[in-house]
């Protein structure tokens, strides 16, 4: 077997020993990645469980189409499938989705490895990438689709190999080219936020597509031959080769294969050139020019503005902690997503429920005001969850300072409360405008109480339930924690929050339910007073707990490198 593989490598002018070593390294790194990050394995299995069947069903459908569709359509479908897969391999790296988890070729350039060996090892290594497993079933479907005509396999098999190599080379080219761009933190941050918002607005996108499909003219669909256009694209040429062979035009099929092969050669060459430039001419990318010393200028600081807004009475550490938290909620992309989603969610919710009949908003019952505590509950929960772990590397700084710990919690808590009020206020404004009920005001008071309760509970919880948060990882949020912390987070905490939060809303809800108008404002104010007392007590208690458990909290929040 080793001899056959060796012969194969030698045939293509490759060094079998080096290829074995590179493949071995790739396998070891992959195995260790799964060992060090068990969550990755869980994610992979979840992906397989949820998306595996979908991919297989789609592949089966495409195989059925290749076998059963009449006339030119099987090759047309093949062209569409190949081009869509190719498009996916091109687009995903731009959005920081790692399609290739192989070796960093830039690091290998210091070794005496030939260009051909490096390129070949990169292509062979893609067979171990997760996304490749999504692609391969579609290739199997093509073979199954044409298995009844063995002569065609002579063209189909090389066409598939070329198409696969084109996808990998294109993905690598895009990835390498965009690396300079992706190194820019701003671009990465923006991508994360945009992707997240795109996800949260899926409903709107869905409605848009639905409307477009309704309006589209489908009468000319039968005469459509997309391959006439797609064949000029690299993977489309592979499909065209199969289509030509299917009509007996073998010479033409070979020409199309040659055309696709030429595309592959160009892509590999371009990829290599970009890679060489990236690694040997790094200064061309992103390195700032030396700057002249700028004269320092007086600037209005956010802390001054916040102090002017009425928080000047807070002790300096609490104010600094609040200002720092407000900045980080906006600047850490993963946290900004939470804020933006919490602002967008009410609008999407309203749009989804009342789409087509916006006038129904005016017929909302009075108890809609009780929706406000629910809105703020999720906003405050999301913001204040794992509040010490979210400090990431900065937690060490916080613990090294002598600032009274309750002041740190007070500052953080006020920041979370203020931010949680933003989406709730939007929602309250909409309800206030449409429902025109004074209950909205009391609903807001109950909501503020709910926020204080949730944040108070999370302050105490974070001393015991802390897990790492890596803000530098932009493709996904890497977080850890044990099974116990996970269970506490999803089961224990909600129960405690519900029990602790009941007094903030129940009196007001009882006033509405039993039609006792006098009870509503009393209940709302009583609930808020209770929440404020709980919040103050929680800051003090959490402060004492943190002082006693600082090294343990620091250990729990520590990022494994």
């Amino acid at each position, binding site marked *: 077997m080793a001899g056959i593989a060796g012969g194969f490598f030698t045939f293509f002018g490759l060094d079998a020993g080096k290829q074995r070593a590179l493949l071995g390294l790739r396998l070891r790194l992959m195995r260790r990645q799964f060992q060090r990050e068990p969550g990755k394995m869980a994610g992979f299995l979840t992906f397989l469980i949820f998306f595996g069947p979908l991919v297989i069903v789609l592949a089966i459908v495409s195989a059925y189409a290749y076998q059963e569709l009449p006339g030119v359509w099987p090759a047309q479908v093949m062209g569409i499938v190949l081009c869509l897969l190719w498009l996916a391999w091109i687009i995903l790296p731009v959005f920081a989705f790692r399609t290739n988890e192989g070796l960093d070729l830039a690091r290998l350039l210091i070794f005496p490895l030939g260009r051909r060996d490096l390129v070949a090892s990169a292509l062979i290594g893609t067979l171990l990438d997760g996304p490749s497993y999504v692609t391969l079933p579609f290739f199997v479907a093509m073979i199954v689709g044409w298995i009844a005509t063995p002569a065609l396999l002579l063209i189909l098999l090389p066409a598939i190999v070329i198409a696969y190599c084109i996808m990998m080379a294109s993905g690598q080219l895009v990835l390498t080219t965009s690396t300079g761009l992706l190194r820019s*933190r701003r671009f990465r941050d923006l991508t994360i936020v945009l992707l997240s918002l795109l996800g949260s607005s899926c409903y709107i996108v869905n409605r848009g597509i639905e409307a477009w499909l309704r309006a589209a003219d489908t009468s000319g669909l039968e005469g459509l031959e997309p391959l006439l256009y797609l064949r000029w694209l690299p993977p489309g040429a592979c499909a065209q080769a199969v289509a030509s062979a299917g009509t007996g035009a073998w010479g033409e099929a070979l020409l199309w294969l040659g055309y696709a092969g030429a595309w592959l050669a160009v892509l590999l060459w371009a990829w290599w050139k970009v890679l060489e430039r990236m690694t040997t001419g790094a200064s061309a990318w992103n390195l700032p020019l030396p*700057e002249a*010393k*700028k004269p*320092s200028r007086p600037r209005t*600081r956010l*802390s*001054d503005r916040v102090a002017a807004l009425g928080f000047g009475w807070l002790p*300096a*550490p609490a*104010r*600094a*902690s609040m*200002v*720092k938290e407000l*900045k*980080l909620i906006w*600047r*850490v992309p993963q946290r900004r997503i939470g804020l933006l989603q919490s602002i967008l969610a009410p609008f999407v919710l309203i749009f989804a429920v009342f789409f087509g009949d916006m006038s129904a908003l005016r017929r909302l019952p009075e108890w809609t005001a009780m929706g406000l505590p629910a809105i703020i509950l999720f906003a405050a929960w999301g913001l204040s969850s794992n509040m010490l772990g979210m*400090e*990431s*590397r*900065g*937690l*060490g*700084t*916080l*613990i*090294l*300072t*002598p*600032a*009274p*710990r309750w002041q740190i919690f007070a500052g953080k808590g006020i920041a979370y409360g203020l931010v949680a009020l933003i989406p709730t206020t939007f929602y309250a404004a909409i309800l206030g405008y449409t429902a025109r009920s004074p209950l909205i005001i009391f609903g807001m008071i109950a909501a503020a109480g709910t926020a204080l309760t949730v944040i108070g509970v999370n302050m105490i919880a974070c001393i015991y339930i802390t897990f790492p948060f890596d*803000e*530098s990882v932009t493709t996904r949020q890497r977080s850890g924690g044990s099974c116990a912390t996970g269970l506490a987070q999803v089961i224990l905490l909600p129960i405690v929050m519900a029990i602790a939060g009941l007094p903030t809303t129940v009196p007001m809800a009882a006033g509405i339910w039993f039609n006792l108008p006098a009870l509503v404002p009393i209940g709302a104010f009583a609930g808020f007073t209770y929440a404020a007392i709980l919040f103050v007590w929680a800051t003090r208690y959490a402060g004492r707990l943190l*002082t006693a458990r*600082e*090294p*343990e909290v*620091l250990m729990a929040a520590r990022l494994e490198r």
Partner: protein
Amino acid sequence: MPAIEASQLTRVFDQKTAVDHLDLAVDEGEFFGFLGPNGAGKSTTIKMLVGLLRPTSGQARIAGLDIWQEPLKAKQLIGVLPEGLNLYERLTAREYVRFVGAMYGLPDREAARRTDELLDILDLENDADKMVVDFSQGMRKKTALAAAIMHTPRVLFLDEPFEGVDAISGRAIRNVLQRLRERGTTIFFSSHIMEVVERLCTRIAVITQGRLVAQGTMAELRALAQTGESGTLEDVFLRTVGATDEQILEETQRGLSWLE
């Protein structure tokens, strides 16, 4: 009363004893060098002394205050440049240093003044309004150093302050440290750069495998290691950790037969 005192300080990780019954006393105003090979327990010791890592047993005191009994009072007296730097990546250098100043209770105006001066002297003024996440290792170190000294601590702990710092910045840091020492700050620092330790430190301790194997002035260490008057700190260090030039030479020759 010593500025820093460790008595029987021990830390065990699983089965491994990282620091083993360490006794140490550093007087007020001393410039104390803490040396050791990689993995000797230097950073673990510093973490226990500043309250970032709970010792398995033993005590750590700063100016007589037990860091584990009166943590906030003790932390008010110290400044730390820790191993991992612990910076807020998404704050700018200016914001970060001011934030730390506020956490030490400095008034806003004073914190702003000191921040500007520190960033200027450490040659970070041009980058002061860039986020730390965009900084190089050397710039991060200088930012962390500015934060560590901005409240004029009585005791300053520095874990590898010169690692990854260019020569100009290194000189600036040395000057700042000298000035701090002149005004009475006790400086405790670990470094692998022997020349710097030899030039700056009034007293030096050597730790290996979690145990303190030597401490004293340069002259005392030379006598202890029997290196003679001309012995450098590197000679002393190698001798005290049990690695002589001859041994290293012999091991490399024996271990690399293919170089024969």
